[in-house]
């Protein structure tokens, strides 16, 4: 019997790439997202290429009541991969508290809502894995993107705690911290560097899941970059325009 994983936010970008990498490893998939047509095309594609079973579900990040229903709708569930997210420019979000709140609700609150429901099910089941896309931006708040960074930093902290909670129940939790990734969100943005492909991040995620890691930076060198960034004393950090 092959495993079944739920991938939330699977219609494009990193989510689609991770769904493809999981399918390539023989995992059946439940794909959830907003655009049902795109999801259906991706689901058909992965089923044809990899011979796995796929199905699709609607997902609205801010419809919190629907989240336990989504988890309950999966007949079998061995893994949950959260890939949905939202990023507004820092200046826009600073100027408009609604945007800031929305970003935090989508990236943090909704993730907690889905994963608490998933954790209950997997904990009772006594096996499985949970993973979510956080970000290197969550490792240290910077003036240029601390609102987005805070939403992801909160998510990282949440996953850290969830990992400790579920370790005894045989459920693994993986926090994914990608750097810049070449998706529709980043395409054409100025000032990006060391941009990785979604396929590279997906391969890193699947490998980290297989090895039972709890945190993975992708590509790996962001671990070093963030270690340096975190080590800079506050007095100096304030003067850097990061």
């Amino acid at each position, binding site marked *: 019997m092959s495993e079944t994983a739920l991938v939330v936010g699977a219609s494009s970008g990193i989510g689609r790439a991770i769904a493809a990498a999981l399918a390539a490893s023989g995992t059946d998939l439940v794909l959830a997202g907003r655009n049902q047509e795109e999801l259906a*095309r*991706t689901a*058909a594609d992965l089923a044809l290429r990899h011979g796995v079973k796929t199905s699709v579900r609607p997902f609205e990040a801010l419809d919190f009541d629907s989240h336990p229903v989504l988890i309950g709708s999966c007949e079998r569930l061995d893994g949950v991969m959260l890939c949905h997210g939202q990023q507004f420019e820092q200046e826009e979000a600073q100027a408009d508290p609604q945007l800031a709140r929305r970003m935090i609700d989508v990236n943090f609150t909704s993730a907690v809502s889905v994963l608490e429901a998933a954790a209950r099910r997997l904990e009772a089941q006594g096996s499985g894995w949970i993973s979510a896309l956080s970000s290197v931006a969550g490792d240290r708040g910077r003036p240029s993107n601390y609102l987005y960074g805070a939403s992801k930093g909160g998510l990282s902290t949440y996953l850290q705690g969830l990992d400790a909670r579920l370790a005894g129940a045989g459920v693994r939790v993986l926090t994914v911290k990608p750097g810049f990734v070449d998706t*529709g969100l980043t395409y054409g*943005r100025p000032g990006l560097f060391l941009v990785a492909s979604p396929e590279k991040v997906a391969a890193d995620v699947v490998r980290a899941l297989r090895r039972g890691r709890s945190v993975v930076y992708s590509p790996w060198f962001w671990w070093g970059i963030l270690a340096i960034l975190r080590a800079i004393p506050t007095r100096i950090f304030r003067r850097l325009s990061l």
Partner: protein
Amino acid sequence: MRHVSRAVSGWGNYPVAQCDVYRPETRADLAEIVARAPQSSLIARGLGRSYGDAALNAGHAVIQSDRLDRLLSFDPEGGVLACEAAVSLAEILDVFLPRGFFFPVTPGTKFITVGGAIAADVHGKNHHRSGSMAASLLDFQLLTARGDVLTCSREENADLFWATLGGMGLTGVILEARLQLRPVDTAAMVVDQEKARDLDAVLERCAESDDDYDYSVSWIDCLARGRSLGRSILLRANHAALEDLPASARAEPYAPQRRLQLSVPFTLPSFTLNPVSVRAFNTGIYHVHRSGRTVRDCDGYFYPLDRVHHWNRIYGRRGMLQYQCALPHESARQGLVEVLEELSSTRRASFLAVLKSFGAASEGVLSFPRPGFTLALDLPYTGPDALAALARLDRIVARHGGNVYLAKDACLDPQLFRDMYPGLERFREIKDKVDPEHRFSSSQARRLGLAEAP
């Protein structure tokens, strides 16, 4: 939608044009780009394997559609595949050859998209028997300038179907297509190799026995002169049946042969390919090859150059010009002699040149293949003199009632284009109905007068 402004070129690396490049992730993104991008014209682009300026849009926008590449459905009984336009032939072979199906029309590279194959109405080594892309295309969905999604087939929107086949992306953006794949018993080819001492010999052998082979192509030494003019090696093949395989391989008839993937890691100096090195290479090839029969995997027969990633870099920074012409049966011999003499007299060295026979033409309004022979060459771009040399070839080809292939063209003159493509007027009428404001245009379209500058 954001775009990236960058220098874009075809596989020949000549010419290079500054274009605003969009990259949709979803079909909704694509529709929004077509409806709202501020640039006045757009052209869809897949894997960038057309050689010249067909997928360039200097000063305007290019839609890099490579992420709309999903397989949608497959009927294993009938072999009908539905997929999005940016699915590549390589992916189709990866997925469906192990299940016993082959792409029915395959050009010399598998790194092309289904959308590009339709837009250029591509042909393969089996054109003399199986025709062009048109023959295996059932229907497709076209996103038009007005934002409509039209199903085009031989029955529905037939004008648009035949104008889009070979229409170089100028009627809209192909979203998805349904194709008829071809069942095969193995992944191997039975290849017959044979030397022909001159042009007459190769033409004669093709006329005599091409019909015995699904696939036929000849490598031609275009630097040979005098009595050896046109000396060739015929490489003709059929799909291998199970009993053609060695007994040890019959249990897994579709097993891919592992091959070393090579790559040219950086652009070589432009002088790497010069008349001396190319003559040595061509003479070497001719003498190394022996006549006889071999069983080879299909990658080795169909896509020898795909083994070397970025092989176009051997031409250096200045790039190369591909040239492919077709000549009707009645004037093929004379036309080929004049073309080959023109090349060898000016010591224009084509690293690789191939000759093959074409069968019946498709109904594509601007489709390239027509009955007769086709010759394909690549020449280093050495400056305006190289363009002048191709212009001389164009005039020879036009005088003999032939035409040149738009997917490879970078410099054809618009007047000669009109002479070569009698379907032009009809194409314009169809385009005017669906895209009156020339929302879809390209550098090539403006050069050839296929679309006005908006």
